[in-house]
Every structure is written in C-alpha cells, then in structure tokens.
C-alpha cells in the first residue's frame, strides 16, 4: 500500500471549511484573513510533514527520499503566487503610494450614510470657531440669537463592507471642544483606516460675532452672516461667503469657485482655482495665485491688487466692474491709477479718468476714457489698438505702429505720418500725454459717440444663487 501523507486530506478539509464559512457567515472578512495569513499554511504544512517524517523515522518505517516532492513544491509555488497577489491587492495603499490608485480602489466601495449626533456648546459672542481638517461640506451661518455653537449633519462612509462602515461611523463622532475662547469642531475623520473614506456634511450655527477658521481637504465652505474674520485653508474647496464683517483670507490648492459678496474687511486670496467672484467689498482686495476661470469683480471700495501668472492688475477703487475670462479682460468705471500687465489678452477698458498704464505681450486693446482724458500709456508687441476720445477733449497724442496701418477717424487736430511699414498718429491740443504703441497691428483713434460717454451705470451682475447642492463629491 502506498503510504500517504495527512497533508493532502488536510488541505481538502481546509478548503471545504473555508467555503462553508463563507456561505454560513458571509460577514467574516475571509479574503482579508486569507490574504494576510496564508504563509501560516506553508508553516503548518512544513511542520506537519516534519513531524510525519520524524514519526516514520522513530517507527523505523521507510522514509521518502524527498520530504516534499517536486509536485508539492509546484503547489507551494502556486500558493505563494495566489497569496502574494491577494495580499498586494488588499494592501494596495502601501504598494501604490500615489493617491490616484487609492482613489480608484476606494471608489469601488459602496456608500453608507449616517446621521451624526448633533452637538451644541455655549460660547462667547465673539468666539473663534475652528473647523479641523475634514473632508466634506460645511455650511456655517451666524445667528443673532445664538449663544452657542451648534453642529449637526450627516456623514457618508465609502467602504467595501457594511461592518467596516459601521465601525468607521462609530470612530468618527462629531465633537465640540472648547479651548480658551476657541471652539474646535472635530469630525475625527483622521482616525479611520486607509480603506474607508468619510465625508461629512455639516450644518454649523454660530453667534453672529464669531470668527471662523476652516481647514478642509475636500469640500465646500458656505459661510453667511458672520461678523468676525474668516480664514479658509483647503486642498480643494469651493468657498462662498456672504455678509462677512471681518477680514477674509482664503488659501486654496484647488477650487472651482471663490465667491464673496458683501465683505466689510479686506479680502486676501491665494492659491489656485477657477472662478472668482468678488462683489461689494469694503476693504482692500489682494489676489495672488492662479485663477483660470471666469473672474468677476465689482464694487470694490479700496485698492485692488491682482497678481497671477497671466495678468497683474491694480487700481485704487472699482466702482464699476472687471471681468476676466480666457484671453479677455473687460473693465469699466475704474478709479485711480490703473496698471495692467498681461501676457496674451484682448483688453477692453472704458470709463476711466485717471492714469492708465497698460502693457501686453499680445492682444487687441480698446480704450474709452471718460469725459476727461487722463494720461495713457499703452504698449503691446502685437495687436490692434483702438482709442475712442471724447470730442473737444484736451490731449497730446502719439500713437504708433511699427508694422501696420494707422487710422485717424478723429480728424483734426490729429494727422497720420506714414513711416516705412508703420505709421504714427500725432497731434493734440496740449494736455495729458497719450502714448500708444504696437509692434504689429492697426492703430485707430476715433471719436467716442455721445451715447458711449454717458457713464454707464455699472450693471451689477446679480450673482446666480449659490447652488443649493454642494459641489463636493460627497457621492462619487
């Protein structure tokens, strides 16, 4: 009789037991257990075989030439490959440290929704509310009656298994922690494992005098009617502010929109993003960053400083509006010396009465000063320049193109001098210097028609209502 080993039958029993386990108690994370513990199968196998051989040796039975045959080594090899693959798949995070993979894996899970237990704690009228680093959307409203900070909301756990989501939810209670005159809103999202992801949707009510500091990883901040300062720092956020009494600082790595309407203090914007909308700002506005979407600024009472990689603009006051989009800049009714420096853009500015200094790499320029013509200085390497002057204004003009034609639609006292491939329009009646230069393009000076001169009331763009549904990908 061929002497057999106990290993073969044991392996069969083990496989059967695993399937049975899976059928009877599906909630046991069997795959996880196998993925991590399969090396013990090898150890057990080796141990059993060792004992077997020693037993045979003691009992003086003939022992096999090889403890483990070639075929068995093949099976070991197979187990190693399968087990190693499972382990890698389950612990992908360590193998693919870059987040996109992680996002993709997490994205395969399911969403589990939970209502968070609301918390409320009394705080000073002018307390500082700090929202700790979290993922999700926060809607913060100041209330005149409130003497407490009240937080409620719900959270979504993205996970592969219900029990994992449940325990994640238990690990992430909402907490309010008073610390001096500061109130910390904590979501405890950093406690969860790498294999689940929590997003919270918070509704926070604060006393109207409170100031807000928010840190987020991803998600929107909507803040309304708060008299203190607002300080938002996030990796990826849409920020919408309305009726803010203090200074506003917003620093974002990525953003779809930053909107501030009605800010009594200054507005300081940093980072990257797309759309920006600032309206009715009483303080100074400073923007340093890269904003690539539609930009709408209107009714700024204090100086504006806009610096980004494509364009820098400054003026002392903006009773009218500025609109910037891809490759265009339109402004009307600006006060104070205006400086604009841009790469490639079509610029259209109307109704300005103080010095204008405009330099472009390329782009068409259209200027229409107000009733009194200020000093104007314009340079572009390539692009048409058009200047509309009110009739009877006093100025001293020199508009030239190195390569292109000059058109004098204004008439006397201007005249055109053609020089080589270019041309120059000169003349004037004494007054502020107007210097326009283009490397290549047409220069036109014309009369502003009467209706153009009526100071257009700056059409206050009624901001579209902020969308009710948050944009942050709560559900993917």
């Amino acid at each position, binding site marked *: 009789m061929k002497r057999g080993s106990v290993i073969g039958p044991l392996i069969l029993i083990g496989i059967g037991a695993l399937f049975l386990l899976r059928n009877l108690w599906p909630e046991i994370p069997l795959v996880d257990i196998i993925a991590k513990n399969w090396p013990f199968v*090898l150890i057990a196998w080796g*141990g059993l075989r060792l004992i077997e051989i020693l037993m045979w040796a003691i009992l*003086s039975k003939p022992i096999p030439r090889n403890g483990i045959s070639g075929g068995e080594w093949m099976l070991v090899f197979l187990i190693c490959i399968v087990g190693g693959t499972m382990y890698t798949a389950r612990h992908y995070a360590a193998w693919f440290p870059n987040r996109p993979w992680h996002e993709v894996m997490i994205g395969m899970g399911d969403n589990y929704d939970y209502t968070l237990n609301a918390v409320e704690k009394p705080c000073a009228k002018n307390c500082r509310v700090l929202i700790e680093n979290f993922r999700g959307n926060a809607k913060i409203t100041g209330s005149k009656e409130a003497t407490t900070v009240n937080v409620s909301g719900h959270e979504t756990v993205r996970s592969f298994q219900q029990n994992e989501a449940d325990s994640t939810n238990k690990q992430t209670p909402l907490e309010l922690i008073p610390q001096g005159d500061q109130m910390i809103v904590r979501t405890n999202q950093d406690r969860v494992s790498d294999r689940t992801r929590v997003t919270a949707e918070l509704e926070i009510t604060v006393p109207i005098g409170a100031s807000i500091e928010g840190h987020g990883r991803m998600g929107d901040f909507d803040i309304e009617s708060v008299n203190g300062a607002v300080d938002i720092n996030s990796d990826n956020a849409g920020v919408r502010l309305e009726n803010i009494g203090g200074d506003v600082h917003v620093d974002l790595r990525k953003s779809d929109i930053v909107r501030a309407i009605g800010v009594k203090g200054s507005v300081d914007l940093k980072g990257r993003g797309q759309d920006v909308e600032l309206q009715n700002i009483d303080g100074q506005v400073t923007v340093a960053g890269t904003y690539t979407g539609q930009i709408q600024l209107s009714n700024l009472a204090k100086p504006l400083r806009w610096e980004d990689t494509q364009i820098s603009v400054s003026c002392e006051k903006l009773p009218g509006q500025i609109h910037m989009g891809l490759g265009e800049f339109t402004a009307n009714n600006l006060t104070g010396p205006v400086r604009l420096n841009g790469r490639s853009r079509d610029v259209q500015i109307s109704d300005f009465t103080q010095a204008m200094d405009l330099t472009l790499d390329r782009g068409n320029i259209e200027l229409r000063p107000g009733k009194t013509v200020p000093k104007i200085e314009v340079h572009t390497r390539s692009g048409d320049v058009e200047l509309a002057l009110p009739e009877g204004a006093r100025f001293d003009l020199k508009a030239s193109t190195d390569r292109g034609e000059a058109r004098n639609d204004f008439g006397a006292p201007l005249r055109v001098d053609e020089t080589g491939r270019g041309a120059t329009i000169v003349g004037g009646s004494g007054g502020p210097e107007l210097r326009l230069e283009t490397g290549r393009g047409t220069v036109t000076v014309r009369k502003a028609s009467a209706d153009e001169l009526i100071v257009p009331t700056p059409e206050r763009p009624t901001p579209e209502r902020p969308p009710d549904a948050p944009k942050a990908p709560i559900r993917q």
Partner: protein
Amino acid sequence: MNVDNYSLIQAVRGPIMLIALGTLVAMDYFGVRGFGQTWPILIILFGVLKLLEKAVAKPATFPPPVPPGGNAI
C-alpha cells in the same frame, strides 16, 4: 532506529525549507522584516542542511588502489 541519518536529513530538508519560507513571508506581512531583506536566509539554510547531509553521510568506500606497476603475469 534503523534509519540512517543521511536519508533522514535529506527527507526533512523540504519541510524545513517550507517552514522557513512561510516564516519569512509572515514576518514580512506582520512588519517584522521585509522579505526583500530576509530571503538570503533561505539560501543559507539550504546550504547548512546540505552540509549536514554531507557530514553524516557514511564514508565513501573506495576500491583499494591498484599498486603501480601491477603484478605482471
């Protein structure tokens, strides 16, 4: 015990290697030491077992040397 040590060591070599392999992988998974660092242990172990085999092997029986010159008939 009438089994010679040589064949015993030869037989247990496989299981011991298997146990060692499993232990190293488990150590990797539980964060003791990475398998990438510890794999040479397998070679060393194999070498040691081979050495043991040689050490307990029965001394080889050589035929008596033929005297030079031989016995010319």
